[in-house]
Each structure stands twice: as structure tokens, then as C-alpha cells.
């Protein structure tokens, strides 16, 4: 099997599993308990919180553990909207956010908030001048993802946060795809809130955190006990939090090597596909993109068909095709970068890990060439295209 879907999820690293295991059968105490067994769990959580805070340049008390990126996004938006509603009801985000942001915004719209969805350019970049033009005195929150999950484009967070702060609004970023992949310093970038997930960086699923800068009024998300400074009640997922800490520690330890290796593999994959498969287009910014993201559209073919055929060759990949989303609309991200529907249906996302090899990528490209050729030979769109070209010659 060749796994090229690391933006969907990653393999839990063996050292992460090793770190977690004692917290199931040995150190199973409740962190809120007074005796030694509970204290061991509490210490494990504190250690994980410290690791994550250090990586972001944050303070320990600014890290709140959650059950993942979607929860963190929901919390940041809903709680900030509620807490700052007396100041205004305007929120700004972008058209290419993850559904955890977009659907939360729709929820807030139904509750009287006004949302502006910023456009992106053909590379998926948000333009700071668009934010400057959209921001108003009653804007309370701006939420822009750090890096896009589909096309890998890395947004100009520093510029966007600076504009937001100059206008006195809060800046939140969904960094689910970026945390642990690229360096992030919340002070240098002036980020007020940041969402991250554990399973995108070789940590366990069902874990994540929300960074909330000290001084920001934000309501509790789960009411109950005093866990997470009373803002997110419920007995902590101790093994999960330990795993998240271990995964963050690992990700930052190997980051430089991982970025170098993945960037090289990514560029090799992009080059081979562009050189060897006709009528394809790289989606996302060519250089300002996540080191492990490759996203192509292939004209005249449909994404789900590509995925099934790749799966038959043992290759795991994903697509922005409608058929993989359960609706008739293709990816909102691909439509936002100006792609036509039929092109968006034929997209393929390959996301690498540092464990992939050049040989694996060669196998994938060789098979992908044959798959695209086969699907085109069956495609009425390709037939029309070829006939049209013949006629115009």
C-alpha cells in the first residue's frame, strides 16, 4: 500500500503510541483526584500543555485541550461571537475554509451575525487589501485558515492578523493543516486564537487544542467541572493529550528534515505529472504551499473514478470531486479559485509523509498516467474535445 492521504489523517507514530500506553492501564487515575495516581495524570497533561505552548511561543495557560480541530473551530467562533456580540455582529472569513468554519459561520448567520466571505485569487491566496476593505468598526472576529487542506496554499497570516489587530478585532486561524508542518509563533504573527488537531501530525485521532490568548473574553464551551480552567469541562482524555504532546514534540524535532524531504518529493511529483500527463493543472500556489501537498486537476475525467482505480493499485489518495463528498457540488475550494465545475470534478489530492519514497511516487505516476488515459478513452468530453480540435485544424 502507498499512503498519499496525509492531509486526511496520518499514521500514529510508534513513539506516540508508546508514550500513550501507560495512561490506559497503569496511570489511569483521574487528573482531578487528590492521590498520587491522579497526580501522575495531571502532571502528564501539564507536560503536554507545556510542550505545545513552547512550540507556539504561547503560555501554558493559553492552551485548551479539545477533541479535535472541528471542536476547536466551533468553540473559537461561537464563543467569541457570543462574548463580543455587544461590540458588533460582523465576522470575516474566507470562501476556502474547512466546513468546521463555514458551517459554524452559517449557524452564526442564523443567529443574527453577518459574515463576509473573502475571495481568494487563482492560487488560493487571500489578499490583505480585501480584508482591509471588508473590515468595519463592528467587525469582532476575522478567521482565516493558516494553510488550505485541499490545495495546500499557505495564507499571508502575518499581514492579515496585523490588519485585524489595527482595527481592534480578534484574529483566529484554523491551523489544523499547518501546526507541526511549518513553524508558527503566535506572538510574531499576532494570532489571538489558533485551532489544531492531533491526528494530522502523527498523533491520536480525537485530540486537538485551541490556543486562546490571555485577556480574550471567551465563554465556556462545555459546562461542568473545573477542567481546562472551567472552560471545557469533562474528565480529560489523558492518553490522547499525552499522545498529542508526544506528537507535537516529535513533529517539531523532525520538522526541518521533514520539510526538506517532503518538499523535494513534492516537487518531483509535480514535475513528473506536469511533464507526463497532458491537460493537467496544478491547483494551489506553486511555492507558498504546504511541503507535502500536491493537488492536480485532470480535464475530461472524474475524480472518484481516479480514486477507485488508484485504490485498485494500492494507492490511497483523495479528490475534491462531488462524488466523494456525497453532494452534487464539487469542492468549494476549487470553485473559489475559479475552476470550472467539470475541472473541479477531476481533481486529485496527493499528500505525502516523510516516509514516502521516490520509487513509490514513480509507481503512482506510472499508474496514474495509464488511469487518466483509460478514463479519457471512455469520456465523451474528451471525444468532443478531440473532434473539436480536428475540426479547427
Amino acid at each position, binding site marked *: 500500500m502507498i499512503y498519499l492521504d496525509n492531509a486526511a489523517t496520518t499514521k500514529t507514530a510508534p513513539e506516540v503510541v508508546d508514550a500513550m500506553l501507560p495512561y490506559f492501564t497503569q496511570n489511569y487515575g483521574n487528573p482531578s483526584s487528590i492521590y498520587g495516581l491522579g497526580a501522575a495524570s495531571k502532571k502528564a497533561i501539564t507536560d503536554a500543555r507545556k510542550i505545545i505552548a513552547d512550540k507556539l511561543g504561547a503560555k501554558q495557560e493559553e492552551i485548551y485541550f479539545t477533541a479535535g480541530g472541528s471542536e476547536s473551530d466551533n468553540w473559537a467562533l461561537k464563543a467569541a461571537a457570543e462574548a463580543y456580540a455587544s461590540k458588533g455582529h460582523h465576522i470575516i472569513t474566507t470562501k476556502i475554509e474547512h466546513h468546521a468554519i463555514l458551517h459554524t459561520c452559517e449557524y452564526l448567520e442564523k443567529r443574527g451575525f453577518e459574515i463576509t466571505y473573502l475571495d481568494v485569487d487563482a492560487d488560493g491566496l487571500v489578499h490583505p487589501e480585501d480584508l482591509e476593505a471588508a473590515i468595519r468598526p463592528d467587525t469582532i472576529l476575522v478567521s482565516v485558515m493558516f494553510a488550505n487542506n485541499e490545495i495546500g496554499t499557505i495564507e499571508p497570516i502575518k499581514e492579515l492578523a496585523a490588519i485585524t489587530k489595527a482595527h481592534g478585532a480578534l484574529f483566529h486561524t484554523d491551523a489544523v493543516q499547518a501546526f507541526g508542518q511549518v513553524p508558527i509563533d503566535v506572538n510574531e504573527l499576532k494570532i489571538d486564537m489558533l485551532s489544531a488537531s492531533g491526528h494530522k501530525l502523527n498523533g491520536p485521532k480525537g485530540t486537538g487544542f485551541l490556543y486562546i490568548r490571555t485577556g480574550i473574553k471567551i465563554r465556556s464551551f462545555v459546562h461542568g467541572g473545573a477542567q481546562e480552567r472551567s472552560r471545557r469541562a469533562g474528565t480529560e482524555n489523558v492518553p490522547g493529550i499525552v499522545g498529542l504532546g508526544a506528537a507535537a514534540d516529535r513533529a517539531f524535532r523532525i520538522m526541518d528534515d521533514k520539510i526538506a524531504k517532503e518538499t523535494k518529493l513534492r516537487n518531483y511529483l509535480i514535475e513528473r505529472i506536469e511533464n507526463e500527463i497532458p491537460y493537467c493543472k496544478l491547483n494551489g500556489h506553486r511555492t507558498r504551499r504546504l511541503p507535502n501537498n500536491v493537488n492536480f486537476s485532470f480535464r475530461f475525467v472524474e475524480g472518484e473514478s481516479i480514486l477507485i482505480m488508484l485504490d485498485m493499485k494500492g494507492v490511497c489518495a483523495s479528490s475534491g470531486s462531488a462524488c466523494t463528498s456525497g453532494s452534487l457540488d*464539487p469542492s468549494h475550494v476549487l470553485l473559489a479559485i475559479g475552476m470550472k465545475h467539470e475541472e473541479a470534478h477531476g481533481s486529485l489530492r496527493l499528500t505525502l509523509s516523510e516516509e514516502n519514497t521516490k520509487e513509490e511516487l514513480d509507481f503512482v505516476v506510472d499508474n496514474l498516467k495509464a488511469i487518466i488515459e483509460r478514463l479519457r478513452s*471512455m*469520456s465523451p468530453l474528451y471525444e468532443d474535445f478531440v473532434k473539436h480540435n480536428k475540426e479547427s485544424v
Partner: protein
Amino acid sequence: MYSEKVMDHFQNPRNVGEIENASGVGTVGNAKCGDIMRIFLDIDENQIIQDVKFKTFGCGAAVATSSMATELVKGKSVQEAMQVTNKAVMEALDGLPPVKVHCSLLAEEAIHAALWDYAQKNGIVIEGLSQPKSDIHDGEEEEEY
């Protein structure tokens, strides 16, 4: 997600291709929704479908339903081909996931569109057949996006 039969017809689609000077050609669906099917029919003077070919742009289910639909109408009379409904196509494939049921409807429409083209060219009326509503340019300009 897919039945073995769907996977078989996706991996080894029957009757892929074109028929030159076909008796009837029908194209349905649109690229916006991600499915286009084109069916070519070769119909003899006794109104028997001697040969049928298809080309499809779409997902696994779209390819499989096209393939199965061609199998079901091949060798049949025009009237018998009219009985090949989307239900018949789905049943022959041992079912489809709910989100893919529209693919089987498209396969039925593609057969009807090709029969309509045949009827128009030959000035005949096929009982129960009306002008197909779907065509590949439908809906292109209607919706804002």
C-alpha cells in the same frame, strides 16, 4: 460502498466506445454535476438493437450503470429497450448507494435520448417515449456560482 457487480462493471465496462453512423445517439447529464453519458445505438430494419456502445464521464457508479444499461438493451427490440428502467439497472447491479441513484436515472435517460434520436431520424413514434429533457448544456448558465 459499491457492490461487487458495480465494481466489476466499473473495472471491466462492457460496450465502451463509439458507433460510426449510429442509428441513434443520446447524450445526457452535464459536466457541472459531474456525470455525462453518451449512448450509441445500431438498430436494424426490424427495430432490433444490434449493437450499443457508450462513453461516460463520471464516477464509478456512472460508468457501471452505463455499462449495465448497454448490456440490458443489447439484442432487444426498441419496445423492450423502453422497459429498461433505472430500477432494472440498479437491480441488475445489486443496488447502488443512495447518493448514486441519480446515476441509474441518467443511464435510463441516456437510452431514451438515443432512442429519441433514432425515432426522429426515421420519422417513427416509439410508444411511451417523449423528448428527453436532459442535455449536456442544461443548467450551465442558470445558476450563479
